[in-house]
C-alpha cells in the first residue's frame, strides 16, 4: 500500500450534549480517491470540517504524511495543503474567473497595481492542470453550476493543495456534467492529489473511488477496497443499528382521510407529481436524503412557497397555494426545520412568541386581553415543561430543546388539526427528544394528523404509522409500519437517486 497522506486518529467532537464524532479514525493513502459515505447526520461533514480547520476536535490528532499537525483555523489547513470544496460555492458572482481563482492573492506590479498578465497566467495554470477550458474573463455569475465548481477546484489547486475534500460534489450536477467531474477527479489522482469524496450516491462510489469508509452515528463502521464490496453490504453498513430507544406506541385507531394531496408540482422547489393521503390521528413519516424535497413539500403544503400544479384538500376544503393564513385558518401548522430563522422571533419573550399565531384572537375590544394571554401561555409552558425563568424571558437565551418547545407551543395554542413537523428533534438533547415523541403521540391519539419530516431513520421507523420516502422531488415509495426497515427506506431513498433517468436530470438542469 502507498504511504499515508492523511491520518486522523481517535477524533472526538461533541456539540453540547450531542456526540457528533466518537473516537473516529480515518486515513487516506497518497494519490487515492477515498469515498466517505453515511446517512444524514452520520458525522461526515463534521469530520471534514475538522480537517479543513473550521471546527476543532475535542480530542484526537491529525497527521499529514506522518507528521503531526494542528489545524486550528481554515488558514492553517490551507497552508498545509488541504483544500475543501463545499456544496455551496464561495465565489463572488460579479468577479471574473481569474479574480475568483486568485481571490486575495492577485499579483501586483512594482507600482502596486494588479499585474493582469501575470494574473491570467497564474489563473490559467490550475485550469490547464484540470484539462478544462474556461474564459478567464467570464463573470462567475454567468457560468453554469458545473463551471463554477471547476473554478472552485482551480482555486483550491492554485493554493497548492495536495489533499482535496469534495462535499457531495455531484449533488448539484446533471448527468453529463458528472462525467466531466469524474474526468477531473481522475486527472487529479494521476497528478498525485489525494481526494476525499463525500457522497451518498453509491453508484458513484463504485465508479470513481478506490476505497470507501462508512460512518454511522459518529462511528467508523469500516473501510474497504471498493473492489472488495458490493452495494447491499454497503447499505447494510450505513443503516444497521445497535442503538436502542423506546418510542411511545399508539393506543388509538387511525381515522378517515384528512389531508389529500394530488399531483402537486412546483418547478421552483423541484417537486414533481406528489400524491398522498394523510389520515386523522396518523403520524406519517417523510423520509429521504437531504435535498430530496421534503422541506420543500412542507412549504408548498403550508402555502409559503409557490406551486405550479396539483390539488391539496384539507378536511374536504381546497387549500389555495401561497396563502399560509388560509392554511392556518383550516387548522394547519408548520413547525419549521430552522427554528432560529423560521420559528422564533429571537428578540422577543417566551410570552410574545408563544401567542404570536393567535394574537389576533386574543383581542377584547381594542386591546389584547393580557390576562387571558398569560393564562394560555402559562398553561402551554407547564404542559410542555418549558424550562424558562419566566414568561418574559427572551427566547434567544433558552436552550435548543426549550426553544423547540416554544415553537411547538406557539402552534399548539392554535389547536391545529394537521401539523407538519420538519426535523422536530434536530440538535436537541435526548431527554427533550423523548418528551417531544410522547407529545406527538398524544396529539395523534387525540385525532391530530401529523407529518413528520426526519433524517433520522430510527426516528422515522420508531414514530411513524406509515412512511413516505422521497427522492429527487418525487415520492419514491410508501411503506407501512410493519414493512419499514431502515434498509428498505435507504434503498428507496438512495435507489431512486441512482435510477433517475438521464432525461429527467437533463430537464432539471435546463
Amino acid at each position, binding site marked *: 500500500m502507498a504511504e499515508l497522506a492523511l491520518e486522523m486518529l481517535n477524533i472526538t467532537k461533541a456539540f453540547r450534549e450531542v456526540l457528533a464524532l466518537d473516537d473516529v479514525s480515518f486515513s487516506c493513502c497518497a494519490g487515492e480517491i477515498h469515498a466517505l459515505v453515511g446517512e444524514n447526520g452520520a458525522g461526515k461533514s463534521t469530520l471534514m470540517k475538522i480537517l479543513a480547520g473550521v471546527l476543532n476536535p475535542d480530542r484526537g490528532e491529525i497527521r499529514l504524511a506522518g507528521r503531526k499537525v494542528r489545524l486550528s483555523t481554515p488558514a492553517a489547513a490551507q497552508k498545509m495543503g488541504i483544500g475543501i470544496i463545499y456544496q455551496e460555492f464561495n465565489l463572488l458572482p460579479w468577479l471574473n474567473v481569474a479574480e475568483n481563482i486568485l481571490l486575495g492573492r492577485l499579483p501586483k506590479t512594482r507600482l502596486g497595481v494588479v499585474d493582469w498578465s501575470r494574473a491570467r497566467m497564474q489563473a490559467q495554470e490550475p485550469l490547464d492542470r484540470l484539462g478544462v477550458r474556461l474564459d478567464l474573463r467570464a463573470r462567475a455569475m454567468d457560468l453554469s453550476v458545473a463551471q463554477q465548481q471547476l473554478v472552485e477546484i482551480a482555486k483550491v489547486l492554485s493554493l497548492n493543495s495536495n489533499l482535496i475534500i469534495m462535499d457531495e460534489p455531484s449533488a448539484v450536477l446533471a448527468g453529463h456534467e458528472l462525467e466531466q467531474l469524474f474526468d477531473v477527479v481522475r486527472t487529479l489522482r494521476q497528478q498525485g492529489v489525494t481526494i476525499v469524496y463525500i457522497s451518498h450516491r453509491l453508484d458513484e462510489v463504485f465508479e470513481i473511488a478506490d476505497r470507501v469508509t462508512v460512518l454511522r452515528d459518529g462511528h467508523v463502521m469500516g473501510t474497504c477496497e471498493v473492489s472488495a464490496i458490493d452495494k447491499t453490504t454497503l447499505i447494510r453498513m450505513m443503516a444497521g443499528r445497535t442503538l436502542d430507544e423506546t418510542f411511545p406506541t399508539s393506543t388509538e385507531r387511525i381515522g378517515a382521510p384528512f389531508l389529500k394531496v394530488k399531483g402537486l408540482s412546483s418547478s421552483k422547489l423541484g417537486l414533481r407529481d406528489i400524491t398522498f393521503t394523510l389520515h386523522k390521528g396518523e403520524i406519517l413519516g417523510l423520509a429521504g436524503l437531504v435535498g430530496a424535497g421534503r422541506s420543500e413539500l412542507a412549504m408548498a403544503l403550508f402555502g*409559503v412557497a409557490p406551486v405550479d400544479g396539483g390539488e391539496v384538500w384539507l378536511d374536504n376544503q381546497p387549500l389555495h397555494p401561497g396563502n*399560509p393564513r388560509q392554511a392556518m385558518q383550516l387548522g394547519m401548522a408548520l413547525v419549521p426545520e430552522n427554528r432560529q430563522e423560521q420559528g422564533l*422571533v*429571537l428578540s422577543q419573550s417566551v410570552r410574545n412568541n408563544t401567542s404570536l399565531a393567535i394574537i*389576533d384572537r386574543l383581542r377584547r375590544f381594542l386591546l389584547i386581553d393580557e390576562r387571558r394571554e398569560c393564562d394560555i401561555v402559562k398553561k402551554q409552558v407547564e404542559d410542555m415543561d418549558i424550562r424558562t425563568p*419566566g414568561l418574559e424571558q427572551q427566547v434567544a437565551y433558552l*436552550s435548543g430543546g426549550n426553544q423547540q418547545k416554544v415553537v411547538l407551543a406557539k402552534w399548539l395554542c392554535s389547536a391545529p388539526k394537521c401539523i407538519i413537523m420538519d426535523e422536530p428533534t434536530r440538535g436537541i438533547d435526548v431527554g427533550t427528544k423523548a418528551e417531544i415523541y410522547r407529545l406527538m403521540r398524544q396529539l395523534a391519539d387525540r385525532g391530530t394528523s401529523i407529518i413528520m419530516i426526519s433524517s433520522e431513520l430510527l426516528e422515522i421507523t420508531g414514530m411513524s404509522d406509515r412512511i413516505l420516502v422521497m427522492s429527487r422531488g418525487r415520492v419514491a415509495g410508501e411503506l407501512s409500519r410493519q414493512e419499514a426497515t431502515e434498509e428498505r427506506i435507504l434503498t428507496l431513498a438512495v435507489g431512486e437517486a441512482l435510477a433517475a433517468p438521464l432525461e429527467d436530470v437533463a430537464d432539471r438542469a435546463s
Partner: protein
Amino acid sequence: MTSISAPERRAGKSTLQHFVSNNALVLVLYAFLSLAMIGLSIHSSTFRSSLNLWTLARQAVIPGILGIAQTMIILSGGIDLSVASLVTLISLLCAGLMDSRPELFVPVATLMLVVGLAAGAFNGLIVTRGRVPPFITTLGTALLLQGSGLAYTTVPKGGIPKSMGDLFYYGQLGSLPCPVILLVIVFLVMWLILSRTDFGRNVYAVGGSAEVARRAGIPVNRTRMTVFCLGSFLAAIAALVATARMGIGDPLAGMGMELDSITAVVIGGTSLFGGRGSLFGTMAGVIILTLINNVMVIQNVSMWYQQLIKGLVVLLVVAIYKQRA
C-alpha cells in the same frame, strides 16, 4: 449557536424583575438623566426656574412626537428619512393656505393630516408593492416632498391664526402647556398601541423576523403599510406644532429633524435592525437631546458645540450598549 443556556429555573423571577433586567439600559439612562437635571438645577438658577423647565418640556414636543413615530417605524424593521421634509412641506402649505384666516384653521389643519397620511401611504406602497428598501424609499420621498415644498415657495410664506398658535404651542391648560399635553396623549396612545394591541405585537414580530411573522399568519405587508401611514400621520401632527411655533411657513422648518429623531431612537436603545426597543427609551433620548440644546443655549455655547456634544453622546451611549450586549 446563538443561544446561551442561562441557568434555567421554572418559576422565580417576578414580572418586575424581568422588567428591570429587560430594560436595564433604559433605566440607567433615566437615572443618568435625573442626576443631570438635579446637577444642573443646583448649578444654575436660570435652569431650575419653572419658566425654563416648561420651555424645556415645550421644546421636547416636536422631537418627541417624531421620535415616537420613528421608534414605531424602526421597530417594524423600517426607517423613515422623509419626516423632516414632510414637516417642511406641511409647514409651508399650512401657513400658505391659511394665510392667518381663522375660519380656515380647522379645514386646512385637517387637510394637512390627510397630506401626512398620503405621504405615509406612498412610502408604504413603494416598500410593500415595489419592494424597495425603506431607507431608499424614504430617501426618495424626502427629496420629492422637499422639492414640492420649495416649488411652492422658497421664502417664508403665509401665516397662522392666533387660535392655532395657542392650541398647538403657546396656550396653556391651567399651568400645563397645550403642546406638552399633546405629547403626553400621543405617547400614551402609542404606548398602548405598541404594547397592548395585536397590531403592536405584529410590529415587533415583523421587525424581529418578517419570515417568522409571515409563517405565523401575520399580514406582514399590511402591518408595514399601517406603520408608515401612522408614522407620517404623527409627523404631520408634529408639523402642525412646528408651524404653530414659528407662526409662518418656513422652508427650513424640518431641517435635521429626521436625523434627530433617529438619534433619539438610537440613544433610547432601540435596535436599528428592528424588533427590539421601546418608547420609554426613545423619550429618554429625546429629553437628553433637548437638555443638551437647552443648557447650551442658557450657557451661550455656539451651535457647533451643540452638535459636537450630541455626536459624542450618541457614540458613547451606543458603545456602552454594545459592551453590555
